[in-house]
């Protein structure tokens, strides 16, 4: 295995284990899907105009991935700062990018559980049908969405190196992104000027791909866009991280004091 692949695989395993060892995180991950599938069901009943019950349920599932990603990537740096590991990680020969990348993928992929659980709870509690139009595309669209969301998380996290209170900001971003990317309501229901913002966000395209794969339509183009955006986020995130780490060394914001 190449060094990069090992760093990602081992980092992923390390961060999944570290997160799942946190009782708070586990409890939230267990209850959130129940909450989300309930919300999705009632929102659907209250009169979403498009699609089926499964449409709403999938939206709730991707929302779960997004919350886990935001929670994880927003927290990654402030936890590390609080634990005192940030300084240790930053000066490790591998470099902090190789810590943060697997960490954001790890939190996004823990969110995968949330998607599955939301669908399962939807089925058990509300009898949401689970009929998938293109099973293969559906199976591919999910990791692609996880990747897209994870890389958006990386991009956001890269700015948190510099600002000690930035993860409050990340919590504030949770709902705007949910709206703008059409997870809660269809994009067509939003004001026209908001839509272009949604086009820049991977959750929008990931969501489209997942829905197209499940409910019918061509899932491949939105999947392509999701992968492209993930690449762009990754590149930008890596650049920002370099810049901000350099600034953090000047401003002494890596330690807690």
């Amino acid at each position, binding site marked *: 295995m190449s060094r990069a692949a090992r*760093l990602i695989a081992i980092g992923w395993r390390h961060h999944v284990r*570290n997160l799942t060892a946190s009782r708070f995180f586990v409890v939230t991950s267990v209850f959130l899907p129940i909450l989300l599938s309930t919300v999705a069901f009632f929102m659907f009943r209250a009169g979403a105009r498009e699609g089926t019950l499964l449409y709403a349920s999938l939206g709730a599932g991707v929302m779960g991935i997004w919350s886990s990603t935001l929670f994880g990537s927003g927290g990654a740096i402030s936890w590390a700062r609080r634990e005192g*590991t940030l300084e240790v990680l930053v*000066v*490790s020969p591998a470099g902090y990018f190789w810590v943060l990348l697997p960490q954001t993928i790890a939190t996004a992929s823990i969110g995968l559980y949330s998607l599955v659980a939301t669908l399962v709870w939807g089925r058990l509690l509300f009898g949401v049908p689970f009929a998938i139009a293109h099973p293969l595309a559906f199976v591919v669209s999910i990791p692609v969405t996880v990747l897209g969301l994870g890389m958006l998380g990386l991009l956001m996290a890269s700015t948190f190196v510099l600002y000690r209170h930035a993860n409050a900001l990340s919590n504030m971003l949770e709902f705007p992104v949910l709206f703008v990317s059409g997870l809660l309501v269809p994009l067509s229901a939003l004001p026209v000027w908001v839509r272009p913002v949604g086009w820049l966000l991977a959750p929008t395209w990931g969501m489209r791909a997942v829905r197209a794969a499940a409910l019918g339509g061509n899932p491949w183009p939105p999947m392509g866009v999701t992968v492209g955006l993930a690449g762009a986020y990754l590149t930008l995130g890596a650049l920002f991280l370099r810049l901000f780490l350099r600034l953090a060394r000047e401003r*002494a914001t890596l330690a807690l004091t």
Partner: protein
Amino acid sequence: MTAPVIEVEGLRRTYRVSTGAVRRRTLEVEAVRGISFSVGEGELFGLLGPNGAGKTTTIKMLITLLVPTSGTARVLGFDVVRQSREVRKRIGYVFGGDRGLYDRLSGLDNLRYFAELYGVPPREQKRRIFELLDLVGLNGREGERVEGYSRGMRQRLHVARGLLHDPPVVFLDEPTIGVDPVGARELRATMAALVSAGKTVLLTTHYMFEADALCNRIAVIAKGQIVAEGSPSALKAMVTDGVVVELEAYDPPPGGADALRRVPGVARVTVEERDQAQLFVVQAAAGFEGTPELIAALGDARLTRVATREPTLEDAYVALVEGASG
């Protein structure tokens, strides 16, 4: 002569701190004010100084965590600002205290992850990790979660972490803090072994006997400046080439220290508060015979102990640091 392993020239670092919630003002704290020193291969160099002197700040600049405000520093010839990647590969460092570990994971998991980040070749990781667990005396406890470790155990885990990639240069910032006496002694043996193995070590500590026992050379730093530098014996000689008389007294007269200073042959007097009593530490010239005069100078005080001894590094340190603040 080979090139020095650590070279520091005119290093400065200021911090900006803002105070006040409403009317914010920015203050500049001058933590390190232009220090220079160099450490040769295989040396154990000590950086001593009171709290807030700038020791940790200096180390953080050397390990590439902080960018100096001005001045330069090189480690193994690599500039700590422009060639930070090269520096990072070749250094290990350990901070005192119990933070900086993944508490919810086991000691072994911690070391495994850092071994990967430090680029220890996969085939060697396991052997290396168990070698270090052995070295720091954590063998058998590696499977337990770090949150259940005592402070000393965490500190040992830090030491193991810092040495995983077998770095040629090691920075140790108060590595024995919080470790019990037996454990601290073992850690000191470990440090001595590092130097025997040819590594270069920069150590900070508040324990003078530790510095005296381990360091080839010491720089005393106070208020961000180096006030003295040399071998432990040179530092002792710099302050006094004589003897030290300690007088422990109950109810000494006011101005007792001044009275002691007037005794001929006395170079310096420092006072330490002990529970009820005061301890006067008198540094005097070699061949000093004025102990009776010292006792007389304290008048009616009840003396519980009078002893003459050789000067220690601590005497030299206290004199240097007080000299710097006076």
